[in-house]
């Protein structure tokens, strides 16, 4: 009965969404206050209905109702409760329902919290948001019904893909979707503004919190996915330039550009058309990402549950939504007037520079991701290539270096006309920190590549630049120091958020550099009692036990890792075999310290010629991994701090005369 309710309310949600797609828009055209206000209620009702539907699906998974096809295919009565719940979105139908849930949630959030937004714009935004909702609700109901029944009812389910039976799945897809779908708000704002034919500083101020929220979620979602791949796949790496990873990174790059360009709209009423285009493109890249993951037209280590048939439907939605928006852009953009000027050295120029490099970087990643498909298409299936890390390392990283190096300078420049001479002392200090850092790293790691030392220097340059800018903003070194604490408290949270996020980039660079330039990897086979040496470390295989988990069998190795004369660290990597799915997974043993991660994987065992048992063992030393995660966490915190700025969204401060 409950699944039928879930299906029924989903139909109701489609009807409500269809009404919401039309009525507020009509209201905005006729200037009918009542019709426009109706949009708010419809958005909340839509969210409520989709929530009921989603909850009923979770319920079916929790009670293991195998009369539902989706539960039978993706769950098993012996599975722990957490994985029964996360199994809801570990498959196509459920994940699309989650997608729509988040889409309607953003609509409802705007209806409830967006009180200060001009009623006509808000009505149009809700209407556009609901058009996307109609497309995806129809997609679910007509091609991916999650509530299909089975007859006769099977006695037990087929289980979830073992790789997905991990706490990572509980949090990674919802966060990633919050990011992907969060950009639908920026998209709806952009389309609504194009329809209205008016973009001003207020529009910039209204769209920014949504773009920022989506950015925070997407950053956290990507990081969590990367972390999950790091400990679950057992390959010792955290980023593989895999198509599905790129699919989330492409909207991130554009979304980051959007975050910066919308500041110019807000403060200076500039870059209007460009910001609107970025908002449309960011969401289209999110849709493209959904398509690439769902359609299975590219090979990926992260693709589960693909279906080309449904891929075509997503492509159709993509075509209508984005094609429509870009068509509207081509027609309406000429009427939006940009009337602002800035000097070559100014905050505007710095933000333009930021956008330029982020967009080029995005184009490079997009090209590298789609190129194999285009080549296969152009050669009629004769030429197939796969594009891996070497391409991205050669093309993408050089674009990122000038981008991140500018982080130290950009925030110091003033609007309209900056004076580089005034920054001379500050930049000299930052450059000094950079050189000292390079020097120290070269002494501490004499064998490491010089480039790694330069990269650490780059991180120091950014961090120093950020801290100096922050110190001069709150006048840390001003003589009247009593007022400083007051200034710190009063100084805008959004500016402090920016500084924190930029510092996060510096920390992230430290992590990336260490983990890629100084990584050590050993693959070997070891018998019990055998010891291998890596740098100053010696690794001994003590024993291997066989055991049982809740729904798997396991082989558990006990290793001791000793550095020269210190005490031993005991590590327990596991290899799990899931009989229901007939699949094995590796559980790496990871020991994290401030300076390095020790990462150990145990593989298959085999008999040697003299009848001894040997296990394949992979051991990695990943320096600075901790800093990598800390850097991303700092970026997310910075975003959250900026988002919590009270001046955003709730009331519009009077614009200062420049």
């Amino acid at each position, binding site marked *: 009965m409950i699944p039928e309710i879930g299906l029924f309310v989903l139909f109701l949600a489609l009807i409500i969404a269809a009404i919401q797609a039309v009525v507020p828009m009509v209201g905005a055209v006729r200037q009918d206050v009542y019709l426009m206000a109706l949009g708010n209620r419809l958005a909340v009702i839509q969210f409520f209905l989709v929530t009921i539907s989603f909850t009923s699906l979770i319920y079916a998974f929790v009670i293991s109702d195998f009369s539902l096809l989706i539960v039978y295919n993706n769950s098993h009565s012996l599975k722990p409760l957490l994985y029964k719940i996360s199994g809801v979105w570990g498959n196509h139908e459920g994940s699309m329902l989650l997608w729509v849930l988040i889409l309607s949630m953003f609509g409802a959030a705007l209806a409830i919290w967006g009180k200060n937004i001009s009623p006509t714009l808000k009505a149009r935004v809700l209407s556009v948001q609901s058009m996307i909702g109609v497309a995806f609700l129809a997609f679910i109901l007509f091609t991916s019904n999650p509530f299909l029944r089975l007859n006769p009812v099977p006695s037990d389910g087929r289980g979830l893909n073992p790789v997905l039976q991990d706490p990572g799945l509980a949090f990674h897809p919802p966060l990633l979707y919050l990011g992907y779908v969060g950009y639908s708000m920026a998209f709806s704002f952009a389309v609504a503004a194009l329809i209205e034919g008016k973009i001003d500083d207020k529009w910039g101020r209204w769209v920014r919190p949504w773009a920022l929220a989506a950015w925070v979620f997407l950053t956290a979602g990507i990081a969590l996915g990367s972390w999950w791949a790091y400990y679950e796949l057992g390959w010792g790496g955290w980023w593989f330039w895999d198509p599905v990873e790129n699919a989330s990174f492409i909207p991130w790059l554009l979304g980051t550009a959007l975050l910066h360009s919308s500041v110019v709209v807000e403060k200076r009423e500039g870059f209007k*058309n460009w910001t609107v*285009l970025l908002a*449309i*493109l960011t969401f*289209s890249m999110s849709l493209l990402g959904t*398509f690439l993951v769902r*359609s*299975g*037209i*590219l*090979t990926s280590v992260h693709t589960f549950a693909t279906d*080309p*048939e449904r*891929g*075509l439907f997503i*492509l159709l939605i*993509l*075509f209508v939504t*984005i*094609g429509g928006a*870009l*068509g509207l*852009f*081509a027609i309406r*953009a*000429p009427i939006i007037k940009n009337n602002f000027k800035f000097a070559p050295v100014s905050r505007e120029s710095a933000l333009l520079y930021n956008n330029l490099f982020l967009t080029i970087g995005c184009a490079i990643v997009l090209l590298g991701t*789609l190129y194999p*498909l*285009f080549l*296969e*298409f152009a050669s009629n*299936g004769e030429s*197939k*290539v*796969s594009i891996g890390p070497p391409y991205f390392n050669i093309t993408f990283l050089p674009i990122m270096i000038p981008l991140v190096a500018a982080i130290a300078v950009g925030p110091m420049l003033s609007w309209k006309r900056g004076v580089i001479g005034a920054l001379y002392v500050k930049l000299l200090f930052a450059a000094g920190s950079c050189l000292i850092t390079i020097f120290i790293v070269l002494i501490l790691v004499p064998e490491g590549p010089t480039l790694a030392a330069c990269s650490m220097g780059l991180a120091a340059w950014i961090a120093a630049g950020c801290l100096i800018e922050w110190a001069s903003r709150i006048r840390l070194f001003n003589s009247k120091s009593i007022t400083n604490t007051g200034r710190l408290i009063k100084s805008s949270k959004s500016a402090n958020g920016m500084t924190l996020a930029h510092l996060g980039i510096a920390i992230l660079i430290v992590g990336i550099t260490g983990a890629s330039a100084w990584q050590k990897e050993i693959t070997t086979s070891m018998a019990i009692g055998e010891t291998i040496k890596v740098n100053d470390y010696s690794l001994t295989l003590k024993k291997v036990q066989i055991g049982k988990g809740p729904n798997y069998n396991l082989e558990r190795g006990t290793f001791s890792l000793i550095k020269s004369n210190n005490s031993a660290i005991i590590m327990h990597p596991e290899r799990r075999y899931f009989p229901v799915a007939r699949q094995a997974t590796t559980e790496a043993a990871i020991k994290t310290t401030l300076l390095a991660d020790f990462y150990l994987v145990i593989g298959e065992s085999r008999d040697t010629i003299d009848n001894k048992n040997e296990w394949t063992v992979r051991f990695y030393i990943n320096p600075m991994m901790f800093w990598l995660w800390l850097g991303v966490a700092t970026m997310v915190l910075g975003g959250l701090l900026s988002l919590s700025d009270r001046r955003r969204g709730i009331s519009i401060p009077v614009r200062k005369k420049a």
Partner: protein
Amino acid sequence: MKRFILIIPIIVFIIIIAVLSVMTLQTKEGRNPSIVPSALLGKEAPNIELPMLARNIPGGFKGSDLVGRVNIVNVFSSWCVPCLAEHPQISWLATNGFPIYAINHRDNVSDASNWLKKHGNPYFAVGFDPEGRASLEWGVGGVPETFIINASGIITYKHIGPITKEILKEKILPKLHEAKR
């Protein structure tokens, strides 16, 4: 001019969508996205030396043996079920005048010898690769795999997976004739 710039995004977008739809349609009709051809295509066969499997089985060969005529190199293991499925086609190729070299991938002497005794040995020479080292050089991802090498020792074609009768007729034989030219 400005108008023109504004329609660039939608033009690029339509091209991308068009290509993606074609590829999705092909995927629906059986295109396998995961098959990536060997990086060795068009290059010389790796000159790694493979030892013989056992005294009574002709074998041991190295990359430089594969010149002077069109040769086939087939990767197999006794434990691999699809290898057995393609065995009749491999035997047919051998009796029809194509010399086939074998890389015996991650196997042991007794299992491999028994397998060849039981199902017949169509191979011109068998190279023993218990550790998979030669397979690594050849870029082998799994068993079975089959390479076609032309008279100058260049790899001209690689097939991943078992050779069925249809694949033999539609892919392997045309590629063998191509390699002869």
